[in-house]
């Protein structure tokens, strides 16, 4: 899959979920971007440097490394195959698909919100 990752959009979506009281998973920008990068490289090794290319805009190296260990590796969403190299698991793909659905829900909700806003 060669989909582009829009960090700004991911941030918007995360903020939307945070506003609903969902601060983990879909409401966590770090989780979103890491999972998007891992999902983009399905079947290939994802270098930590590639993840950082996107996450450096909003988080430091330490917190991303910690997230990789405490969430992705611990829950079995990604496996470390070499130093600084990760592969997404089947469970990770499920999480990635859920993330895509969460983006679609956000877009649908936003579009409808705008329509309602324009209704007198």
């Amino acid at each position: 899959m060669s989909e582009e990752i829009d960090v700004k959009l991911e941030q918007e979506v995360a903020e939307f979920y945070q506003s609903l009281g969902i601060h983990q998973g879909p409401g966590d920008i770090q989780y979103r971007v890491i999972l998007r990068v891992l999902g983009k490289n399905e079947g290939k090794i994802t270098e930590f440097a590639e993840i950082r290319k996107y996450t450096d805009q909003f988080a430091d190296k330490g917190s991303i490394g910690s997230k990789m260990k405490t969430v992705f590796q611990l829950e079995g969403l990604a496996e470390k195959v070499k130093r600084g190299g990760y592969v997404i698991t089947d469970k990770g793909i499920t999480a990635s698909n859920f993330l895509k659905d969460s983006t679609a829900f956000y877009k649908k909700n936003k579009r409808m919100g705008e329509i309602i806003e324009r209704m007198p």
Partner: protein
Amino acid sequence: MSAGLLLNATICFAITISSFAFAWVLARSEDEHSEKSKPALWSLVVLWSLVGLTYLPTTVRMVAAYIGNPTLDFMMYNLAAIPFSFVSVPLVFFIMYVIVGDKRISAYTSLLFVFFGVSYLTFLYTKGVIGPEVSDFSSLFMINSDIAISIYLMGLFVIPTAMILGLLFLIFLQRMPKRLRYRTALPLVAISFVFDFMLTDMITLIDAMQLAARIFVLIGTVQAFLAYFPPLTLQEKLGIKRYSYELYESPEDIDDINGEDGEDIDV
């Protein structure tokens, strides 16, 4: 000279008064609306004004039929045809603006319906009408141009109705709070009611159908009122009442929250 014609005239007058009143109330509430919803609000004001302007000469027309004045009847029919032909213009603008959110695109699309309206009027006036045929309940005219009827059905009826149904479908597909669903769907149902039955009213050749269509136009106008200004009992019944409340915070609660053991928290 039957009472049925007077009843018809009364219904037309009721539609006129309620449409103008509704347009006026909407226009007066301009300050309560956001900048984004103002273009749609004004298109609704124009729409309801055009409905009123269509039924004002129609009221006179029914009175003219009652007193047996076919010339006045004919003149009023031609006069009512003008606002009627342009009813779809603000309607299309309203729907396009609500869906797309671009004033320019909405204006250009509605301009197309100005063209439809002008074409309809041109064919109507050049080919003329046959009538009036006065019955117990109504006075009917038959449009003497097939092209006018085709424009009327395709341009003025099918497309705007499909647009309303599309927007309604979009709203029903989305899960949203009951209050918002009521606030968005009911005005559309009301507009659809009024618009569709106005067209039925203008094209029908059966007097009872014309009277029934006008009753439904009146029901649609009342529905539109209820959509924007629902009475309290209806709000409670439908569960759409907006309660005005203040955040509850009493000193006892604060003590409870700050309590050391926190066992006897009163919720």
